[in-house]
């Protein structure tokens, strides 16, 4: 069993590059997936006896390519020949493996594999599902559990997403420098979607929570092939910092624990240190972007040994910068929270007012409003705001948290 667990990790690690290369050969997602699957089965049969090959990825690509070619030949006897383009590409694939792996193909293969999951026609949930299936190789059953749908429903969802991607045409031409950079943005956004799916899951669902670790793995992979991109460093740092708090965000009963009340000694120091190192690297580039700024904000929380030590005025400045880079009412709401810490609840409330229209349907807006009104002693209006928040809560834990706030309001006796 120990052997198999080890092989499983090796196959998972090799998957994006191997799948990317097989997709380039076969130009068809299903064929590439079947070829990779077949190569994995052979690895499980032969590696335990012979030991892992020196370069497992090259081994999987080579074996997968051969099995895919066999499959196409078998099918070809029963159906029409594949079109000329596919055939000529196969003969091209006979070229020396090692040379191909060392080439720049490698980077573009992985980027392409990730990029096709970000097609703008695909809704966010389909992008996430497709990435988890195609890039990460997570089983349909496990993805279905994470999304709380049946396996057949998830199977259908992924099949539909694949069809849509195929219909749009897979981008096989080697991208130029500009296209490469253009692809990075959507890919980074997709990875952050995967992370947030896991982050917002709450304490109870381990299948969803695992998505955070997977997103971090994908970001490291992307950073390894684009080592000089400050926004990818920022994204990785941001996710590491948020994930470092995973054991403290909920109490034993599954209730939300706010940042200031979390037990900071339980934050994952290793992840924090890695994130701070990445952020330092990113800042040297002097190209601030939304991920870097959000990571810098999270880093200020991570650097504060106690909640009281938090540098809120610096956080407020960073939210100002984020408002300029990435204007959105939600960012402004976060800035209002920082302002309340620096300049008090009354000033924060006056800045909250203009956001009301845009954020009226947003849980956090009413939660923040209730808390600020509570601080200024306006208990009646605070209750009203908290009531709105409960109505808009997206999970029982969120609703329970606001009820707790309401109870505190009562205790203060105002």
């Amino acid at each position, binding site marked *: 069993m*120990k052997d198999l*667990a*080890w092989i499983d*990790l*090796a196959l*998972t*690690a090799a998957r994006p590059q191997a799948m990317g290369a097989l997709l380039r050969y076969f130009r068809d997602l299903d064929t590439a997936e079947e070829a990779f699957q077949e190569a994995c089965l052979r690895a499980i049969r032969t590696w335990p006896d012979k030991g892992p090959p020196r*370069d497992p*990825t090259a081994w999987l690509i080579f074996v997968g390519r051969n099995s895919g070619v066999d499959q196409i030949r078998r099918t070809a006897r029963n159906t029409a020949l594949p079109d000329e383009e596919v055939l000529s590409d196969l003969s091209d694939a006979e070229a020396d493996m090692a040379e191909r792996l060392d080439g720049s193909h490698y980077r573009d293969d992985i980027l392409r594999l990730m990029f096709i999951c970000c097609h703008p026609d695909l809704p966010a949930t389909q992008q996430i599902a497709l990435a988890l299936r195609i890039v990460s190789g997570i089983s349909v059953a496990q993805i279905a559990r994470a999304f709380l749908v049946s396996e057949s429903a998830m199977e259908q969802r992924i099949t539909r997403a694949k069809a849509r991607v195929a219909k749009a045409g897979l981008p096989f031409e080697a991208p130029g420098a500009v296209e490469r950079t253009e692809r990075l943005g959507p890919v980074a956004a997709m990875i952050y979607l995967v992370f947030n799916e896991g982050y917002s899951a709450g304490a109870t669902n381990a299948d969803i929570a695992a998505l955070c*670790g997977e997103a971090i*793995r994908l970001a*490291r*992979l992307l*950073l*390894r092939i684009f*080592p*000089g991109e400050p926004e990818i*460093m920022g994204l*990785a740092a941001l996710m590491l910092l948020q994930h470092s708090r995973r054991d403290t965000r909920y109490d034993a009963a599954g209730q939300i624990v706010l940042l200031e009340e979390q037990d900071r000694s339980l934050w994952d120091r290793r992840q924090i*240190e*890695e994130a701070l*190192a*990445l952020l330092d*690297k990113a800042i*040297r580039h002097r190209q601030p972007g939304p991920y870097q700024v959000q990571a810098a904000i999270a880093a200020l929380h991570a650097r504060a040994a106690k909640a009281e030590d938090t540098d809120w005025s610096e956080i407020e400045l960073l939210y100002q910068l984020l408002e300029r880079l990435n204007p959105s009412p939600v960012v402004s709401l976060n800035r209002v929270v920082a302002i309340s810490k620096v300049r008090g609840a009354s000033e924060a409330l006056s800045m909250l007012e203009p956001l009301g229209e845009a954020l009226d349907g947003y849980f956090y807006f009413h939660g923040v409003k209730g808390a600020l009104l509570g601080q200024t002693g306006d208990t009646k209006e605070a209750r009203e705001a908290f009531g709105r928040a409960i109505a808009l809560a997206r999970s029982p834990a969120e609703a329970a948290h606001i009820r707790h706030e309401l109870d505190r309001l009562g205790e203060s006796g105002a």
Partner: protein
Amino acid sequence: MLYAILCYANEETVFAWSKEEEAAVMGRLNAVQEPLARAGKLGPTGRLMPTTAATTVRKGKDEPLVIDGPFAETKEALLGFYTIDVETLDEAIAFSKELSAVNPGSTSYEIRPFYVFHPKGSPA
């Protein structure tokens, strides 16, 4: 002789370990180091962060170049190191074999004798 034992691994697998896998491997590795530590032969040990956290300063024509990423793009990256003070190379090899046996993530251990410059961390 002072040896650095340099552990090489595929970092994609090592940094994908679950908490439980990580704890199990570290437990076994600590057990291997225990006898050496008791004999006073074990120096500082460390794990390197992923190569994505690395920066390389490379000689340029004029100013040295600062490059994001590791010194070399390889399948196997330097993952961590042990420093030991043992009598013979055989002892260093035996120690490395034991480490290798309990760490499924490692691919190679390079045993490299080293000169000590600043044992207390000060050049003075």
